[in-house]
């Protein structure tokens, strides 16, 4: 029974993930599902920074926005293929992260948080004011939808296959990073930067690397968003959006990979259900965040891992993998 669980866990998750469009093709539901995938990537991208190296960004929407506008502009104004747009979105956002990270990550403490906060505002202002490039507050229309062979992904439910696949690829890469020498160096920095240096780790280099990877993934999420709603405007990348991403990661549990996904899905869907209570929904949203960090600081990820271990019967650190997941959840 238990080994059955371990064997079926991933296939069942994949079936549920890819099976959603077979259950419903309702545009509202499928758009929400796409947003949940995009936010999952964003929360994961932030987790590479915070969960791995212990730094955090309060302006992640800037990289999300840079990605969205890069892909949007390249495909609309230059007429490049969408796949080029996706790659350029990641690369340009990653470069922006690199350029912001190099001067600020040399320093310890909250510097990166402070710098990203300012950077987020600046990017937003540029998107609004540089009308000749971005079309200003009116936004950029006519962003094309991708085609794969004979299929045109111009419906929310068909696009969903792309966004779900993108999430799977990102999850896969983040796991690989986690279990590598590079990831281990990042975790060591998070745990104790001085001791990490004594192990021969150049902490600045790895913090900048983590931040660049993080911005790269956020840029990819931006492109995914631009081609989903086929329109980009500055309003999607305001400071409040950065805050939402941060909250998703924290509610999911800092350092927990499944947590980021569950946190993103939960905070994408919950506000929709709260529409019933009208204007009170954001009040409740705020209250939930305060309560979560106060009374469940490990986030949802802690519960997921506990459940996973119970089902798999590896409550104690038996296999290397179970142990590492536990580490991730406890952080």
């Amino acid at each position, binding site marked *: 029974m238990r080994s059955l669980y371990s064997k079926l866990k991933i296939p069942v998750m994949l079936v549920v993930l890819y099976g959603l469009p077979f259950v419903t093709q309702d545009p509202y539901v499928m758009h929400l599902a796409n947003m949940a995938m995009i936010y999952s990537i964003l929360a994961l991208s932030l987790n590479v920074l915070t969960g791995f190296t212990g730094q955090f960004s309060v302006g992640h929407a800037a990289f999300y926005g840079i990605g969205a506008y890069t892909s949007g502009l390249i495909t609309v104004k230059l007429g490049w293929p969408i796949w080029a747009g996706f790659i350029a979105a990641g690369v340009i956002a990653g470069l922006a992260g690199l350029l912001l990270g190099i001067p600020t990550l040399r320093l310890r403490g909250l510097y990166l948080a402070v710098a990203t906060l300012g950077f987020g505002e600046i990017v937003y202002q540029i998107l609004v004011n540089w009308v000749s490039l971005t079309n200003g507050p009116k936004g950029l229309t006519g962003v094309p939808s991708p085609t794969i062979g004979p299929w045109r992904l111009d419906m929310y439910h068909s696009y969903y296959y792309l966004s779900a696949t993108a999430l799977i690829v990102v999850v896969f*890469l983040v796991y690989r*990073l986690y279990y590598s020498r590079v990831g*281990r160096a990042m975790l060591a920095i998070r745990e104790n930067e001085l001791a990490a240096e*004594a192990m021969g780790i150049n902490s600045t280099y790895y913090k900048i690397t983590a931040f660049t990877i993080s911005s790269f993934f956020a840029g990819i999420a931006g492109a995914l968003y631009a081609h989903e709603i086929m329109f980009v405007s500055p309003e999607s990348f305001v400071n409040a959006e950065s805050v939402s991403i941060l909250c998703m990661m924290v509610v999911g549990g800092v350092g927990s990979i499944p947590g980021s996904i569950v946190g993103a899905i939960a905070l994408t869907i919950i506000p929709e259900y709260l529409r019933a209570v009208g204007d009170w929904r954001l009040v409740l949203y705020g209250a939930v965040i305060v309560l979560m960090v106060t009374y469940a600081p490990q986030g949802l990820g802690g519960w997921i891992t506990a459940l996973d271990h119970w089902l798999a019967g590896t409550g104690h650190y038996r296999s290397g993998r179970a142990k590492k997941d536990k580490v991730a959840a406890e952080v």
Partner: protein
Amino acid sequence: MGTPLLKTQSLSISFGGVHAVDKVDMEVEKGQVFAIIGPNGAGKTTFFNLVSGYYFPTGGTVTFKGEDITRLKAYERTRRGIGRTFQNIMLFRELSVLDNAMVGLHSRLKSNLIGAFLRTRATREEEERGREEVRELLHFVGLDGHEDNLAKNLPYGMQKRLEIARALATRPELLLLDEPAAGLPTQELSSLVEIIQKIRDRGITVILIEHKMDVVMSISDRIMVLNFGEKIAEGTPEEVRHNQAVIEAYLGKEE
């Protein structure tokens, strides 16, 4: 004699006018166990921090294997062969014992981001070899069977030994041990002394800061005594034991 492994010349640092380490000249020969003793606040740990690159001196130089390393950062010194432990344990608390030691291998492994994402054959083989090497080190300090525990869950004495294993994983030629015996119960002291002797037998030079005099006297080849940041004596254990300045510095504090 050849060049000494480590040499400091007139090494000094002051914090807000206080000379924490004041013009210290010393040399350590390869293969020695070299102890630094002195009353609390004598500047012993500060001296370690200067040698390992956590502080930059306000004066003087540090030379390692004939190379001036005074301005090198901590991680660069580790890569050149200086390993260290910390007085108040600084493990990666939320990582497993095995991973803690694996971090020590960092600068000797090569796999980069591409290797991480693609998990190439070279990367996998390197990790496997690394794990073997680290298991051997954990066995060496007597931590076998604890590989998968989280570092924070180890009892105190084991944490101290994990710090040593982690430092050994960096393949140091010079190992700095900051109070390895502090807080250990008497019955664990003899196994610690044994570990330090075995480390020396592997050809690793050891400098240790220690308050427990029986430990210091039984394993050290040479001893340097610091007081108020200044070197007041240096010599064999026998010489230091009878040095008048040392006796005065320790007056009534002999442990």
